[in-house]
């Protein structure tokens, strides 16, 4: 689905959400985060054994959560990360396409509490909750 990632205020070097593949505005969504074999960080994280940083996976989930949570608003904004409570279950080596899922559990004011998950080839990589706030960075 084209267009949704354009909501993200991030520059090209920090768009960890590659694509939104399904969205129910304000409720839930699925997306993909793709990493190639020659990402700039591969040589350092870690030398000879590249692993997708867990914070990148969390960032990709937060970007999808921001899009999903505020996509039902008249003037949607991607939002900012306010709280993280996730577990990282396994490491992922690039190249890799991570499948992301987000479901909005509860809202209060400009905040949305979201259940999130990331899988790689069907294996659970990350799961938990994120809170995103609506508002420009």
């Amino acid at each position: 689905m084209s267009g949704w990632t354009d909501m993200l205020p991030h520059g090209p070097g920090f768009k960890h959400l590659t694509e939104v593949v399904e969205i129910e505005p304000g409720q839930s969504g699925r997306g993909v985060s793709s990493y190639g074999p020659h990402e700039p960080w591969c040589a350092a994280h870690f030398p000879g054994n590249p692993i997708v940083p867990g914070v990148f996976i969390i960032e990709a989930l937060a970007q999808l959560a921001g899009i999903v949570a505020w996509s039902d608003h008249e003037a949607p904004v991607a939002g900012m990360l306010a709280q993280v409570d996730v577990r990282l279950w396994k490491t992922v080596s690039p190249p890799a396409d991570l499948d992301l899922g987000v479901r909005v559990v509860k809202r209060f004011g400009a905040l949305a509490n979201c259940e999130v998950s990331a899988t790689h080839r069907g294996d659970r990589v990350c799961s938990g909750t994120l809170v995103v706030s609506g508002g420009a960075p």
Partner: protein
Amino acid sequence: VNTQESFAERICELIRTELKLDPSTPIDETTKLIGGDHDLDSLDILMLVTAIEKECDIKISDESIGKDAFGTVGSLVAFVQEQQA
């Protein structure tokens, strides 16, 4: 301990957990949640409502969540009981 006191104590336990307070922190129905020592912000309220829904197996509509319900523990207990009714 009557049912009302037991329910209020469950809410107090959730507050201690969600606000990451020491388990011995004194909280009762007169404790202020907005203002006072704890002074919940929007994120605290969101997380507390999410926890209450899970603990009490109820659904609280987003529109019904107002700061009036979070004046004191007692007002929160009454609010949750209204939602259960």
